[in-house]
């Protein structure tokens, strides 16, 4: 039966992935103190004029009633995001005083371990002024933005700053997804079968935690210069083939995590990696700024393949081909719709951090940044870096991002799983192998 509801500009129905992120956010708040958020840091090669930036960004944010909204349930039980006009400011601003760049990054990291204040705020901006340069940290609540959406949001802001206009339907209404039940159930069945098969086949190797009390999300970043980035992509093309950088990055990260687990004497087994895939259509310039438009692919890196990069790449390529062919990311997205019936707190219980995760690490490669302008407001951009909080299970994430011709690797981890030295060694191993 097809139920069609009239679209409303004030409500945007949440997809299965949105609902899972809502639950993940709750699990993070309960167990780790702060919600599921991420930060995009823009390094500017000059000092931004704070007052005019805040004024312009505040006006821009007022164009989006979602930023003052909240989750709700409709009479048909479908969860939705209720757009609002609370009168409160849709964005929080903060200034950070740092003695040097290292101190600045430490303080920006601290902000990701701090809940949004006041409650109901989904976006905050942190300004750090150093001697001749400045950093702008944009903290996004994952319930409203995914990584690509946040890049697009900043891109649209720059257009707004230059033209005073914001073009395109940026908050399009969406359906309630209360149709296509048989497809959703078939997708659910398919995912369940894949899960059972994977569990039987694989003994997963992952980090172990004694406790999550007081655990903080830490970050380590390595950015490559233009020539280094070119060299990395040339190696990726040669070893993994054209358009396969993400598999190359995944293979290198897998080998480094494998070596780390060896050093930590973490038993034997395969690595299972959850890989985030943007589900926006390829080649699209995308106006989908808000909510989550991604799904996951799961890769198994066999213990026997891990020591040899070429063998590992062959195995991952074959797996990728099969996963795309059997449309498992689409199946997971569709199956997720069935989860929307569960209360958020119940779903959150299933996403609580576990002593030993069934996933070895989380991985994403966002590719070329959607923000392509050379500057932000009137200052030249040096680099743009993603700092995503990692889901508490597995508590270890390796993320690649690229701004212009600069590649960055971000290691995101919970400090109850990995010491600072171990994290530094892991990032060094990845950077050197790339």
């Amino acid at each position, binding site marked *: 039966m097809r139920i069609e509801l009239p679209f409303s500009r004030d409500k945007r129905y949440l997809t299965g992935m949105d609902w899972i992120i809502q639950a993940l956010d709750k699990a993070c708040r309960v167990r780790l103190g702060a919600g599921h958020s991420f930060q995009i840091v823009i390094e500017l090669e000059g000092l931004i004029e704070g007052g005019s930036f805040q004024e312009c960004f505040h006006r821009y944010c007022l164009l989006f009633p979602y930023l003052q909204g909240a989750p709700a349930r409709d009479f048909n039980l479908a969860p939705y995001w209720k757009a609002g006009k609370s009168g409160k400011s849709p964005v929080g601003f903060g200034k950070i005083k740092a003695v040097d760049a290292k101190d600045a990054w430490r303080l920006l990291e601290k902000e990701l371990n701090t809940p949004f204040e006041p409650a109901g705020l989904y976006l905050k901006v942190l300004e750090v002024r150093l001697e001749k340069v400045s950093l702008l940290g944009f903290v996004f609540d994952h319930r409203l933005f995914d990584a690509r959406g946040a890049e697009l949001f900043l891109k649209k802001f720059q257009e707004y700053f230059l033209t005073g206009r914001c073009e395109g339907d940026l908050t399009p209404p969406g359906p309630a997804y209360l149709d296509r039940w048989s497809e959703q159930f078939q997708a659910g069945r398919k995912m369940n079968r894949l899960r059972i098969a994977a569990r039987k086949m694989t003994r997963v190797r992952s980090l172990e935690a004694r406790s999550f009390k007081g655990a903080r999300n830490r970050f380590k970043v390595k950015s490559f210069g233009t020539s280094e980035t070119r060299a990395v992509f040339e190696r990726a*093309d040669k070893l993994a*083939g*054209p*358009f*396969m*950088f*993400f*598999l190359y990055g995944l293979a290198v990260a897998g080998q480094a995590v494998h070596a780390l687990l060896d050093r930590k004497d973490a038993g034997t087994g395969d690595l299972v990696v959850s890989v985030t*895939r943007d589900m926006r*259509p*390829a*080649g*699209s*310039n995308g106006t989908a700024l808000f909510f989550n438009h991604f799904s996951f692919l799961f890769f198994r890196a066999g213990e026997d393949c891990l020591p040899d990069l070429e063998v590992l790449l062959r195995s991952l*390529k*074959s797996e*990728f*081909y099969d996963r*795309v*062919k059997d449309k498992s990311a689409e199946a997971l997205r569709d199956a997720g719709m069935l989860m929307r019936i569960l209360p958020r707190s119940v779903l959150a219980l299933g996403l609580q951090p576990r002593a030993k995760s069934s996933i070895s690490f989380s991985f994403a490669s966002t*590719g070329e940044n959607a923000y392509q302008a050379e500057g932000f407001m009137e200052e030249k951009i040096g680099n743009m870096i993603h700092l995503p909080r990692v889901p508490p299970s597995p508590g270890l994430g390796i993320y690649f991002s690229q701004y212009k011709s600069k590649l960055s690797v971000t290691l995101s981890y919970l400090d109850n799983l990995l010491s600072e030295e171990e994290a530094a060694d892991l990032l060094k191993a990845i950077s050197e192998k790339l």
Partner: protein
Amino acid sequence: MAAKSVEEILEVLLHETDIILSGRNGKASPSASLASFGFDSLSFVELLIAIERNFNVKLIDAGIGPEDLKTLEALARCIHRAI
């Protein structure tokens, strides 16, 4: 399967590319580079799957070099050699 000419293969590739990329970067052309169409890893593998479906050849195993991927024309010649 009856042998197909490079031109016939190219026609299928152009059609599949337009479907996969939904014509978002304009209509695919035989001599433009694949990268300029906006292919990424996922859409590229979708194209390889379409090639397997249409020509019964699994290029991901058969091996494709960077030269074969410069343009759709070059890719059509590569498929022609493989089938």
